[in-house]
């Protein structure tokens, strides 16, 4: 089971990421302890030179983590045909207790990596390495998270057993299921649509405002996280119904399947990119007071907020288009 190209790619990506972060960890500790930009000592100059190498290494790790999420979901969906009872990624992820934790951990690392990349980006825009300690401290904090992803993936992929009868998405995302997924699926379409359009509209407005006025960075991050939740809820509650043209099929994973033209990717890719950009815009706000970043932070966060606004707007447009072109009639008259 483990010898699937996607699984090998995912495990390799995680292994390489952990190995690279482990290799960078002693350097990060040295930077945190000994960095002194005022000094011309041999050690300081060596740290300055090596920071390029380790920053590039870490950017590669973080970029790998961004791509890994997409591959993880794609793989989970693709493998569904191998398990009895699995109709989509939900069945595959339910084969053992590590599937969903692995997905959630990968998503968390995705957003943390986005925040780190935003911090690293502004640091490289200043001549005096103002955030070098912060970003290497964050790197040390990220190491356990990336290691956790590797651990969960190993547990998940090594314990995939083809003879396990798994449950399909219908049992997890139905109106009768107890828990958050059931509650969201049970939301009536009109309030669900209202929450979706108002929530997404607010997030777009806040991000666009910051893009122009550059004074609401933290709010953009909060609005982006909220918009992410609202969008997932909207997909569960009504968008999926219109895609499947079925009033009771709420699965947020089946929309990724080829039978539905992989339409889910049209929603999820801009949603994840927008949320990551929004979180990035917020993550760099604490550093706007630093002299060498006074101009950089507003400019970069405005650009990130514009990406967030555009991404969320795309989600709304795509979702609306999916609703309008559907043959399903949920709302009368």
């Amino acid at each position, binding site marked *: 089971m483990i010898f699937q190209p996607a699984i090998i790619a995912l495990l390799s990506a995680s292994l390489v990421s952990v190995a690279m972060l482990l290799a960078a960890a002693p350097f990060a500790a040295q930077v945190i302890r000994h960095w002194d*930009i005022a000094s*011309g000592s*041999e050690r*300081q*100059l060596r740290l300055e*030179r090596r920071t*390029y190498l380790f920053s590039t290494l870490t950017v590669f790790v973080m970029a790998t983590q961004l791509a890994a999420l997409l591959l993880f979901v794609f793989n989970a969906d693709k493998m569904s045909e191998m398990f009895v009872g699995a109709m989509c990624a939900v069945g595959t992820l339910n084969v053992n207790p590590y599937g969903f934790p692995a997905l959630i951990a990968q998503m968390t690392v995705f957003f943390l990596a986005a925040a780190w990349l935003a911090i690293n980006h502004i640091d*490289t825009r200043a*001549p005096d*390495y103002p955030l070098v300690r912060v970003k290497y401290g964050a790197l040390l904090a990220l190491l356990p998270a990336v290691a956790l992803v590797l651990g969960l993936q190993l547990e998940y992929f090594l314990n995939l057993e083809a003879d396990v009868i798994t449950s399909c998405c219908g049992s997890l995302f139905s109106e009768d299921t107890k828990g958050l997924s059931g509650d969201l699926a049970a939301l009536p379409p009109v309030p669900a649509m209202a929450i979706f359009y108002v929530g997404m509209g607010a997030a777009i407005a806040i991000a666009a405002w910051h893009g122009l006025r550059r004074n609401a960075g933290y709010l953009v991050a909060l609005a982006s996280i909220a918009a992410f939740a609202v969008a997932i809820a909207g997909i569960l509650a009504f968008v999926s119904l219109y895609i499947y043209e079925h009033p009771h099929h709420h699965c947020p994973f089946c929309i990724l399947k080829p039978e539905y033209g992989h339409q889910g990717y049209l929603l999820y890719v801009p949603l994840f990119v927008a949320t990551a950009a929004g979180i990035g815009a917020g993550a760099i706000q604490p550093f706007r007071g630093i002299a060498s970043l006074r101009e950089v932070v507003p400019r970069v966060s405005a650009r990130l907020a514009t990406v967030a606004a555009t991404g969320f707007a795309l989600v709304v447009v795509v979702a609306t288009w999916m609703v309008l072109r559907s043959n399903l009639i949920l709302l009368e008259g």
Partner: protein
Amino acid sequence: MIELRDVRKVFNEGQHNEYAALSGISLTIEPHRVTALRGPSGSGKTTLLTLIGCLARPTSGRVSLHGRDISGLPERFLTEIRRKTFGFVFQQFNLIKGMSALENIMLPAYPTGRPHKELKARAGSLLERLRLSHRGGAKVEWLSGGEQQRVAIARALINDPEVLIADEPTANLDTALAKEFLALLERFGEEGRTVILTSHDPLVVESAAVHRVVDMRDGQIVSE
């Protein structure tokens, strides 16, 4: 003003062939003056020039320009400083064969995004100033040593740098051409340009065009 504080440069550090090219150099180079670094081969003159011109980083110590540390700057900022602040004349001139003198002169200005017409006019006026107008279209490999050197000088001046750095500028020239170079040096001095050059040619270091001579030996400053 360029200031060096306790600068060391070690090559092949930690290897069996470790070599300390510079040891504890502290030096202040005043603006608008012609400074010559004099010393025998292996004294560290060229290494010092590369550190001042941001072509290499010191092993320890700092180099600052107008009070701003330039030895520790991230690469993206160094590129800008190299392009705008320093003009380089290399010992072997390092002109690009197959290209004309005019094209060679214009080359360092392309990344600045200035309009081609403006660049061509600037390169033309530099050629005229260096009495090379008639050779602008000639491929550099067809030029004599003296002409090649003047093209190299024009190329170093295309971005109007504050500091002109020249490594052994007369090493490949005969006495007549070396005197021509000294005349140019005198003009740069009169214009108030900062010039830093290395030389062990008495014709250069003892000339009136040079305001200050710094003697080096074994990677250290021995006298001024």
